[in-house]
């Protein structure tokens, strides 16, 4: 099999031009020193409390996400291509969500079958004909990108509900600057630390029309959520309140928070709680994380939810295969970023192909996330594949299959020293008055040799992501 694309070294083992300086620097660093820096980073993350709870682990246990000190570097040119492609894609996705809750043009045009939308659990009939400010549904999007070769990027999935990880993008940069300040004199790295400013600007720009100075809050499920650090971090960096469901109440279709000085109106909620838990009156009635009546306030236009309710319809893996067509349909453009070829197991032909090639494919749940419930064919045993075949026979509609991409690798400091490990990238796209991005994203790395699963819940780590200035 062909070796995967290495971010630092070309096929002949020579460093790529933009990695040259780093490569020379890295050669001078001893493993002992790198080990010490790794330990220092872990200590700082722990002291500062940048920790992550892993589901299924002992209650209350906290872990740091392993941080790798070898950065992932993009040239300005590569980034420009990515950024243009990301803007295009997110713009089309927002058009799509508006469309499926209003005119349904894409269905009428026969591009997506109606049952794919209306039978999808992520479609929220409650949102039909509801207007949201600027017609934007997914203000915050995290798009997972992988590279298979020079200039060859694929979108692995779109995350349009409550994408997380952006705090690690910022904290990893701070950590790199702290551990290796000299590297930042050798390279001109575009800054990413202003992300919270852009986020606040974006959230304010989608305020309800009648509000002059919007009161923005971040809604968290609470401190036992795995991303609690990020919720509190973003609230603090934006200088807004971090609220839980019980801090809010709805009266006359308006949302208020309970403060020491009495109720205070809330206009924009950056919510990090899933649709299902947002409003016990509308969705799961046993949810204690939400606010009773929130949906009615949202529908009445008195409060903006970011992201809006019902965005899951656009990031579902069963809708993913249609995204390139959406770009053509809504924008009249050719997609800049590729989709990974996808077999929809609901189609008999695709299912047959999937069965015949289980050992070569990656099979995923259409509603799954976080690396749970998936099969990576080439990395699985015969028994695992057979077990998965059973799931697939029982519920073919719930699965899609994709060829196993040769994800690019990046040198990573592991126990045996510096060695290549597979990576992906999650850049964040903010849609408000305009679409904004910081140059960079969260690079996730699979720390196990050969592993393609980068999710932090599955033991993945993170790297700082550099976009070089011209």
């Amino acid at each position, binding site marked *: 099999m062909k070796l995967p694309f290495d971010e630092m070294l070309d096929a002949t083992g020579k460093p790529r031009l933009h990695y040259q300086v780093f490569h020379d620097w890295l050669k001078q660093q001893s493993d002992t020193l790198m080990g010490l820096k790794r330990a220092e980073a872990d200590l700082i993350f722990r*002291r*500062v*409390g940048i920790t992550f709870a892993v589901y299924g682990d002992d209650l209350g246990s906290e872990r740091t996400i392993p941080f790798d000190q070898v950065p992932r570097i993009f040239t300005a040119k590569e980034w420009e291509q990515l950024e243009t492609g990301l803007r295009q894609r997110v713009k089309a996705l927002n058009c799509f969500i508006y469309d499926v809750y209003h005119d349904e043009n894409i269905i009428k045009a026969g591009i997506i079958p109606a049952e794919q939308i209306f039978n999808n659990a992520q479609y929220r009939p409650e949102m039909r004909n509801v207007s949201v400010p600027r017609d934007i549904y997914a203000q915050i999007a995290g798009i997972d990108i992988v590279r298979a070769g020079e200039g060859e990027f694929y979108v692995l999935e779109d995350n349009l509900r409550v994408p997380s990880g952006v705090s690690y993008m910022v904290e990893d940069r701070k950590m790199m600057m702290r551990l290796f300040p000299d590297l930042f004199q050798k390279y001109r790295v575009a800054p990413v630390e202003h992300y919270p400013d852009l986020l606040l600007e974006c959230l304010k720009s989608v305020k309800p029309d009648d509000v002059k100075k919007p009161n923005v809050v971040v809604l968290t499920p609470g401190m036992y959520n795995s991303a609690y650090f990020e919720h509190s971090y973003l609230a603090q960096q934006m200088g807004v309140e971090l609220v*839980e469901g*019980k801090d809010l109440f709805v009266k006359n279709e308006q949302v*208020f928070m*309970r*403060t*020491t000085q*009495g109720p205070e109106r809330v206009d924009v909620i950056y919510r990090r709680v899933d649709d299902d838990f947002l409003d016990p009156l509308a969705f799961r009635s046993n949810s204690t994380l939400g606010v009773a009546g929130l949906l009615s306030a949202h529908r009445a236009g008195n409060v903006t939810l970011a992201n809006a309710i019902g965005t899951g319809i656009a990031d579902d893996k069963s809708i993913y295969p249609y995204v390139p067509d959406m770009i053509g349909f809504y924008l009249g453009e050719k997609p800049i970023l590729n989709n990974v070829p996808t077999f929809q197991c609901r189609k008999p032909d695709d299912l047959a192909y999937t069965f015949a090639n289980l050992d070569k494919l990656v099979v995923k749940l259409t509603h799954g996330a976080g690396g749970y419930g998936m099969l990576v064919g080439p990395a699985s045993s015969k028994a695992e594949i057979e077990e998965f075949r059973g799931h697939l026979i029982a519920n073919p509609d719930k699965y899609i299959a994709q060829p196993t991409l040769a994800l690019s690798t990046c040198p990573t400091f592991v126990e045996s020293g510096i060695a290549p490990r597979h990576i992906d990238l999650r850049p964040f796209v903010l849609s408000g008055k305009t679409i904004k991005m910081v140059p960079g994203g969260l690079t996730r790395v699979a720390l196990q040799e050969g592993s393609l699963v980068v999710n932090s819940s599955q033991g993945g780590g993170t790297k700082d992501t550099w976009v070089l200035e011209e």
Partner: protein
Amino acid sequence: MLSRTADCLYWMARYTERAENTARMLDVNHQTSLLPQPKDFLEQSWRKLLTISNLEEVFMSQYDIVNRENVLDFMIYETGNPSSIVSCLFAARENARVIRGKITSEVWETQNTTWLELQRILEARNQSDPSRLLEWVKHRCHLFRGVMHGTMLKNEAFYFMSVGTLLERADNTARILETKYEDQASLKALRAENKTSDDEAGVDFFDFYHWAALLRSVSAFEIYRQIYSDQVTPKQVAQLLIFNKQMPRSLVCCVNELIPLISEMKNQQSKEIERLLGKLKASLDYSDIDEVFSQGLEDFIEQFLERINHIADEFSSAYLIPLATA
């Protein structure tokens, strides 16, 4: 500010102060227990430590006998005991974690580091010398307050933390005074009963150490010397801990510091707290140690505790328990 945020700030400070005071109380008992004294009395003083915090029942459900080792274990490490040092530091850190966005990163890191260091101490639980551990607890709590004063904006968040600290401190100083005073009385009674051959000088000698230990437990031994330049007498000790306006852990000082804080954070429901505090201050201002002794110290302290805890309850319902839908 969110009521829930205020609640976390308040309890973070209260639990930190409680951890410190538990450490102080244990330290003084530990020190006095090393002095020569009747065995019955020794047991009684450890038992008393449990009763003032209403913990005797929980304790007896887990241990057979009341002795130094068991009480120290229970009051330092036992997570089933809500007032144990480990429980208090855990609760303080959990509260801090919830509202880490509302405190400076220095304050958060102080709380978090305390907790992380405590994990290491817990691993070596049986080897650690209680005095050193208790010193460490006091030191971490001092550090917390220093960092809080040195880095936080003097705004609402700071006020809620200060109120938590002061209410807890007033409560604890009163309790420490009450226990030790009763101890002393019961010791006298024991001695009278037994009519032992203890010479009078020996009794005085013990008295001195007893009161000195009490003063040390509230960091007031040197202060006492400085103010009274006199031998240590129960009456003056009580006077110092109740009435001295300059002594940071005295009851009067706590109440005096609370008043401007509350008037700074006025809301629609704070009138009652201001009234109660004003009344408490007036009754302290127009009283003196002789009056307290003629009323009976125990009685006085019981009343004080009732009033300060009533104020704490009112404060909770005015600011911390989410205001009703208006």
